[in-house]
């Protein structure tokens, strides 16, 4: 079971509430207000806000006319939803079987040491988030990491350091980093 305790964090939506409501309304409208589309709606909202704030979930429930408990049950069940704000940079380490037999666990530990956070955490200043993923289906590149949407294959400690340099230096994430896979 995807264990994620929804911590009620202070709202971090950069937008004022009225504008956020506008976004929620637009997204819900895009799916015709269908209750069955709740997963797709939450995905789109997460793309907009980078995470799902409690207020976002409340607005979604109201717009869809479903109990808040239902929206929460879906948001906490599926792993791709983040109920906490993510950092500006997103580092994902693949933990698929192919990556595992080629030393993926050591790469994750290296990332944890370099970034000073554990998998699933965000740095205190929300500079970066470290996540693990079960398999990205690019097993030929094992062990694999994705930093700001770019895939980096056949990782080792030295390559990790290079990849992490801009993250640790606080550089801006590259253009179009949400589009993947980037070349």
């Amino acid at each position, binding site marked *: *079971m*995807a*264990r994620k305790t929804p911590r009620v964090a202070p709202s971090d939506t950069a937008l004022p509430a009225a504008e956020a409501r506008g976004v929620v309304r637009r997204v819900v409208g895009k799916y015709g207000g*269908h*209750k*069955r*589309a*709740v*997963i*797709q709606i*939450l*995905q789109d909202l997460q793309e907009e806000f980078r995470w799902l704030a409690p207020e976002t979930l409340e607005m979604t429930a109201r717009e869809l006319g479903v109990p808040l408990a239902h929206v929460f*049950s*879906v948001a906490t*069940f*599926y*792993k*791709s*939803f983040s109920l906490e704000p993510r950092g500006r940079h997103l580092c994902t380490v693949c*933990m*698929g*079987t*192919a990556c*595992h*037999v*080629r*030393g993926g666990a*050591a790469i994750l*530990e*290296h990332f944890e*040491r370099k970034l000073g956070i554990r998998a699933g955490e965000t740095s205190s200043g929300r500079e970066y988030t470290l996540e693990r*993923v*079960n*398999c*990205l*289906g*690019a*097993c*030929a*590149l*094992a062990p694999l990491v994705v930093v700001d949407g*770019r*895939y*980096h*294959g056949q990782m*080792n*400690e*030295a390559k990790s350091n290079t990849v992490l340099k801009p993250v640790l230096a606080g550089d801006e994430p590259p253009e179009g980093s949400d*589009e*993947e*896979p*980037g*070349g």
Partner: protein
Amino acid sequence: MKQVRAHLLVCSGTGCVSCGAFALKEALDKEIVRRGLQDEILVVATGCNGFCERGPILIVHPDNIFYQRLTAADVPHLVEEHLLKGRPVAKHMYIPPTGKEPVPCMSDIDFFKHQRLIVLRNRGRIDPEKAEEYIAYDGYAALGKALTSMAPEAIIAEISAAGLRGRGGAGFPTGKKWEFCRRETASPKYIICNGDEGDPGAFMDRSVLEADPHAVIEGMVIGAKAIGAAKGFIYIRDEYPLAVSRMSIALGQARDLGLLGENILGTGFDFDLEIVRGAGAFVSGEETALIASIEGQRAFPRQRPPYPAQRGLWGKPTVINNVETWANVPSIIQRGAAWFSGLGTATSKGTKIFSLVGKIRNTGLVEVPMGIRLHDIIFGIGGGIPGGREFKAVQIGGPSGGCIPKELLDLPVDYESLTQAGAMMGSGGMIVMDEDTCMVDIALYFLRFTEEESCGKCSPCRIGTRQMAEILARITAGRGTLEDLTKLEALALTVKQGSLCGLGQTVPNPVLSTLRYFRDEYLAHIVDRTCPARVCKNLITYVIDPEKCVGCLLCLKNCPVDAIAGENKKVHVIDQAACIKCGACFNVCPAKIQAVLKITGDKGRES
């Protein structure tokens, strides 16, 4: 279509793209224009070629020359030599591990030579974002045949006669599933494509969706006609953004061409498809859980029967098949059941795609006839184990599958033989392991995976996986007892018998199969407190051999916890109390020195 003298096919699967395929294509486009060749040569971005290990890959047609690991910098020379002077460039060709001579032709490379392509027939040769290219290779011909000259019963009879079985894992006969659904009187009926490829180590469905989305659409429209459905869904994993984007493009094209939507091909048949993105839950690959997910619920599996064919999506009759199964349908309709069933074994017909990954030379996707021996896949196509290491086992079937040892390498690959051996076909992930892979650690890896992914509905699965993982963790830490093995076996049985869905019923397989074939490794961990593969951290020690150390400071500088003491040209020493066993020193010590040793057992503990 414009006639050109050569096609440059740049693989644009996820693997090649992440090694720079788009930059390569851009460089090729530019160079072609710079040389004024734009009217004679066409650069095409194709779907996944399969030989992902060698990306970025370029194939030059019509010569069928295979170039590997190209960068943008190689382009000017390559274009000048091959396309202007007609001299293929040997240094970018594939050199087999056993030989020295490059192999220019793709079809001569061992990796491709032994494959038999049905589902992947268009891989690396068409642009997946252009319906015309799919059509040029007989695409949608089967749809035309099915819609204009076949009754629904005849379509189902053809699929049944072909002996097609579900490629998602369980291997249920596809024709039978369709037949059950057709017979139901309730309406509307739905069809679903299961593209929630969650098995770690398997990526054939991603590849098919990315490389040949129209084959899936065509298969689904034929299926819809057969069972009488007007609406279908393609459920794609959230982790596959490229697959989602290619499929959306393909759906749009199919609608524009009258191959989808209302009055398909003017036959009066209406059917449309919608993409639903998954949201990262392994259990949603289970058919009833996937249906719940499309309905906008949590992905909890439910009791079967009733099967989805009777009561599925919104309680209506539903056929749900996996990506690879749907992609097989057009070929069967077009070429006939007899042709398809001519391939394979008595019970398993046609081909199966495997993703060959892990400790293997030629990593990638392979499509082979059913019944091929494991040995032929791993050594014939895969080229064996790299680095002079020994083959130990191959894990087949993901978290529901098992590990097959060396002794069974002659096993013919089909549904029944794999299940008998304690593994299963699963979606077709094949993870090759060598002597540096610890089998107890692998069992722990899978149990940790399923512990996390169990939806929590059935207590035997929810609690049992956790208990098994804890016992395995104890064993890998060197604190296991012989009684733990009995407990593991008892728990495995309870979870198998007491779980509702296919996930729970199969999760103990990785434990059971490793206990069956690699019991001695468990015993080594428990009795001798050693890890023969030198993987389990609690049981290994890193030491520096004073005879070999040249005092180069390399390990010292790379140690993340400053546990190594030493000076330039003086022997370095690891402080065992501070060492976190990350292996950084072992990895950086130059191959010709090899002063850092990884040892297990009492010898390590004494030092």
